[in-house]
């Protein structure tokens, strides 16, 4: 009788556990999109207007330079360190202008920096809240005083934006924060957008940027590919792009409209909702283990290990 009831119990427990793991998956699959907040701050980069002067890169470093952060970088071709020549976003560079060359006649500049997602993966991933999204402005920023350096944000970010200082004893994560504590505070605009001579970078509320992007597309038919990159990608981002060549050629990956963070959180939260499942598991296991222990005590035979037959 007893082994039978135990088996029944295990069966129930097993199916409960199974349900607990299957339920979140179905739940996550049924997930809808995130609600987009168009009042958040954002940036529109127009690749067709950019002249590649890189004033934005210089302004970014000048404005946000801090101890152990955003120092000039020397390139391989430049052993004397004459230029600040970052190859890509890095532990010293929050924004970078690159040139995509298809042919002498067809080329395009492209600017990389944090996309300030509506539902940022890095914020969802960070275990200690070192990355956070401001509720009002939507700015995703980094706090080095909290960061433990686990680099899960780098794993999580679909755009590979957060960069780590691999060569430093006391490294930080480096990413754009829309000049939250510097230029934005003083002038109400990011340094890069402030210095751009050709209005290739526009700073403002997301809804205004989308209107502006549509206006430019309408005013110049044939100049742009007919989507605004970032409007729907991974649940929508606040750094939007207009370009004359397909975005994938500019290194902006073709991404689904679902935010990975929503998928991950749905599954994780279904398992850990109210911490009920772990507590239930613990109490159930305690119940079984205590009963077994009592049984063991009641017929504590002299140790003859092999005599009790396993049922496995």
């Amino acid at each position, binding site marked *: 009788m007893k082994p039978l009831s135990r088996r029944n119990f295990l069966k129930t427990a097993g199916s409960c556990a199974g349900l607990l793991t299957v339920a979140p998956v179905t739940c996550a699959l049924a997930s809808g999109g995130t609600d987009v907040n168009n009042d958040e701050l954002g940036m529109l980069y127009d690749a067709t207007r950019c002249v590649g002067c890189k004033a934005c890169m210089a302004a970014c470093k000048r404005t946000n330079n801090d101890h152990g952060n955003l120092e000039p970088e020397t390139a391989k071709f430049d052993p004397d360190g004459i230029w600040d020549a970052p190859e890509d976003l890095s532990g010293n560079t929050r924004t970078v202008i690159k040139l995509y060359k298809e042919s002498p006649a067809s080329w395009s500049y492209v600017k990389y920096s944090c996309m300030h997602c509506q539902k940022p993966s890095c914020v969802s991933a960070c275990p200690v809240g070192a990355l956070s999204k401001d509720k009002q402005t939507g700015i995703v920023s980094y706090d080095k005083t909290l960061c433990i350096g686990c680099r899960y944000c780098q794993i999580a970010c679909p755009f590979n934006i957060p*960069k780590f200082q*691999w060569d430093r004893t006391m490294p930080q994560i480096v990413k754009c924060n829309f000049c939250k504590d510097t230029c934005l505070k003083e002038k109400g605009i990011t340094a890069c957008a402030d210095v751009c001579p050709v209005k290739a970078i526009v700073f403002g509320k997301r809804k205004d940027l989308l209107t502006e992007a549509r206006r430019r597309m309408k005013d110049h038919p044939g100049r742009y590919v007919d989507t605004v990159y970032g409007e729907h990608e991974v649940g929508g981002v606040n750094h939007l792009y207009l370009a004359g060549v397909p975005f994938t050629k500019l290194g902006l990956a073709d991404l689904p409209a679902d935010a990975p963070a929503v998928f991950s959180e749905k599954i994780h939260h279904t398992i850990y909702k109210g911490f009920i499942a772990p507590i239930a598991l613990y109490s159930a296991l305690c119940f079984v283990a205590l009963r077994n222990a009592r049984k063991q005590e009641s017929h504590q035979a002299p140790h003859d290990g092999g005599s009790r037959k*396993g*049922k496995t």
Partner: protein
Amino acid sequence: MHHNDFQKQEGRLFTKSFFVLLALVLIGAVLIGLRFTKGLGAVSNMSDGFPWGIWLAYDVATGTAIACGGYTVAILVYIRHNMHYHPLIRSCVLTSMFGYALAGLSVMVDLGRPWNVYNFFIPSRWQLNSVMFEVAMCVMTYTLVLIIEFLPGILYSLETSEWRRLRAFANWLHPALAPDQEKLSGLIDKVRRTAGVIRPWLDKVLIFFIVLGITLPTMHQSSLGSLLLIAATKLNPLWHTGFLPLLFLVNCIYIGYSVVILESLISSYAFKRPYEVKELAGLAGIIPWLTVIWLGIVFGDLAFRHQLSAAFRLDFYSGFFLAQVLLVLAGSVLLFRARNRTSPRWLFVSAVLIVLGGALYRFNVYLIGFDPGSGWRYFPSLAELMITVSIVAFEILGYQILVKLVPVLPRIHMHGHGKPHGTHHIENKAPATKGLPDGI
């Protein structure tokens, strides 16, 4: 409780393998020193595209699965109430303790800003959406629980040991340095009495820690899979699925049982003890059912997501996927035959295959199937590998020493298989076998 089930391994502490392992540990210590002075980039090949390297993929994600022996055997003994596995449990808990503690150590080496780790203990900074948070908290608690689970053995030794080694050491010291004999005896007496007071009290509450030691791995082993859920656009669709937590959980259980088999076979071989074939055959009977369930989920999920054709495309990813499946499958097929389950050789072969397959699955998820975009490549640097090797060496070293100081290994006369050797002196004929990561 049941201290009669276990015994100390006799023999010298300072064997040849002791010094080999110690040398490896020291090399690692130097490299770790370099990492903390010159930065992570100085010793590792990790990059912004591959921010997690072999330390995470092997030491943490795979290492803790290999250290699941304590968890899986505890399920058998305390939940399924198969007491005849009890003799195995202490060595399993010991290896789990080392596995987890050293996974924790490699995390501390891997973390960029370890001085901020205290943030985990400030509730206002908890970020409950983060899978990493759950894993970190669970692993830290579980390591503590493992130490508590192992304490009875240590307390028992403190209580009953004659402290010959310590006394010999005191005698060996220069008279000016050596402590007073009486003082030493008094001190030893005090330690003994304290241990005698704590042990019965601990025995009473131990079961609650043991059950915690079953709950916590269930949580964080599944969460180790959940960690990569958020990398939806980077992890290859062959591996990225909502079933990652379930797959990781089942995976760690069959790896756990296989490692128990390997560990028992290897320590029987190395310490010249009779093989515990009967217990191992029982474990081996469980494994193939778990792997069948696991493979069922893997392929069912692929079919559900219409990715089956990708699995057989025979490209880079499909190759590693099939390798992982075939290794697990081959080991399981061997174990389905009852005769193979009682042969130490076939047990060894199949357990190795399953551990390799299961570990490859974790590598696939953490490194091989991870594609951050074009232009990023990762292969661990020599220094990075050496740090991992030294951590594994430290694990084996600790195991070797502790089994000689504390009754950990199953008592030999309990089993009727083979005749125990008259004297169990240690020659460690197989340091090479022991050096394998699977041997932990």
